């Protein structure tokens, strides 16, 4: 089992793939290391959110993903 990182919207282009599997558990430092410098720079911005197991984290640096969790990286939204 592992943690699946999901790159949404423009982050998918930066990552070069829609998802990436990494070893569990995964914390904030591990996430920054796993996504590469370009995506990590985006994650540093306040307007980029992180969801773990379907819930948006109030404080993304508190990430603590376990086996089987999906970690979604959520760039600024645009709907309508």
């Amino acid at each position, binding site marked *: 089992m592992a943690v699946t990182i999901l790159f949404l*919207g*423009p982050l998918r282009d930066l990552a070069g793939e829609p998802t990436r599997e990494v070893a569990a558990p995964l914390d904030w430092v591990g996430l920054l290391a796993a996504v590469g410098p370009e995506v990590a720079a985006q994650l540093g911005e306040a307007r980029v959110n992180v*969801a773990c197991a*379907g819930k*948006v984290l109030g404080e993304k640096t508190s990430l603590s993903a376990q086996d089987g969790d999906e970690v979604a990286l959520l760039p*600024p*939204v*645009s*709907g*309508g």
Partner: protein
Amino acid sequence: MKDVRLLHQPFIPGALIGPFTNAHPGLGGVCTFVGEVRGNEAGEAGEVERLELLHYEPLTLAGMDELADVALARFDLMGLLMVHRVGEMHPGEPIVCVSAAARHRRGAIDAVDFCMDHLKSASWFWKRERRAGQWRWIEPRAEDHSDLARWTKL
């Protein structure tokens, strides 16, 4: 009644609004907004060929449902319809439809305005368009954020 949907196929707003209106006998007014894929504006380079809206299954519909609950609690409504497309669309196709039924017009008009501002820049959607074969991500405009901020200043 609350009717919140994510649609993967084209839809005809009138086919939803008719039954929605009929479901609220005794209403005083219905306000409806329909957003469509915009075609080219004067002076823009490259024709808009496609628009694609992406969503994130665990968050998007649940977030819309929460937004509908907030609007129902905040405005004096009898019912709220909120429908959003995802997937690839052509210019002229409806993307979004919000309709509010109320005893009096103000609640209905304000509720639609409120929901649209939140759908534009505070809901889990990502939008990109293709011009001349090139996809480009669209970020919310500054106006979208100032429109949203109007609702927190009260």
